């Protein structure tokens, strides 16, 4: 499965991420595919190695999917890691993509969850349906 995205599609993804995720207070948001390719990153990723983050997130998602299978689930739809100052939230987008959101301790997890769920619905048709 290969993915080719036109400039228009990329622009639509960017505006959806800016509007729904960054405006909710996230520091940075990345859309990656489950083989580790970085598709779009938005926000302020200063000193952040986004390419490595994309590869490791895809691997992390794959590894937790195996854990899910062990307990009789197909997959986990979201993952959340809490740090001292920075948190990271992963949401499944369709079957083939992951949305990674970085946000600080002053931003509510509930708001991030709500907004990432909304943006997921916008992203799926752009990425070619239920991939």
């Amino acid at each position, binding site marked *: 499965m290969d993915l080719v995205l036109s400039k228009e599609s990329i622009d639509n993804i960017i505006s959806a991420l800016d509007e729904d995720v960054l405006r909710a207070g996230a520091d940075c948001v990345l859309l990656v595919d*489950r083989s580790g390719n*970085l598709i779009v990153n938005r926000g302020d990723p200063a000193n952040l190695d986004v390419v490595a983050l994309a590869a490791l997130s895809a691997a992390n998602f794959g590894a937790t999917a195996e854990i899910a299978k062990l307990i009789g689930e197909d997959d986990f739809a979201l993952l959340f890691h809490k740090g001292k100052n920075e948190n990271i939230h992963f949401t499944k987008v369709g079957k083939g993509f992951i949305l990674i959101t970085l946000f600080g301790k002053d931003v509510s997890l509930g708001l991030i969850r709500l907004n990432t769920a909304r943006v997921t619905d916008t992203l799926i048709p752009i990425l070619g349906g239920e991939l």
Partner: protein
Amino acid sequence: MSFIDLSKNEVQCKIVFYGPGRGGKTTNLLYLHQAMTDSVRGKMVTIDTKGDRTLFFDFLPLALGQIQGLSIKIQLYTVPGQVMYNATRKLVLKGVDGIVFVADSLKVQKEKNVESLENLRQNLAEDNVDINEIPLVLQYNKRDLGGSNIPILSVEEMQEDMNKELQVPWFSGSALKGDGVFETLRAISKVTVKYVSRKLLSR
């Protein structure tokens, strides 16, 4: 899965180094990382595990310049070679665009090479990928041990074991010294980019 971003005219491909445990897959990546300039290579990521075996994967992104106005970004991964880590190998193989099979020239590894290649064939087939169609290059590693008192397989024997049916490009190498490492990368990059762009054109 390759990804083509037409707003940046960029192609991203995933190349996986496969092969039996302790065969030199990580050493290949380490050599490339050391030998390349910062403008070409990204940061190498190795998941920290105890001992010198890869338990999950190593990762090295490279920017290989432009072909027909498209900039080529390649991501190199290694898999853990040990037989018991097959679930991890399947995870890393997900969406692969090209494969370097690093075979071990040590005589004692003869069967492990064949076993690992067969395991690759099976894992690809489970993902509906035919080993005869996906870009694949063989590297016969540790050739520098020839002449030492450690028994090694002859290139002819390795060809007979692994490449008789596949008939893919192969290279003699010594990942530790760097011999054949760039040749292998050049060959797999070339066929992978060709394969990905052919798929793109047929859409």
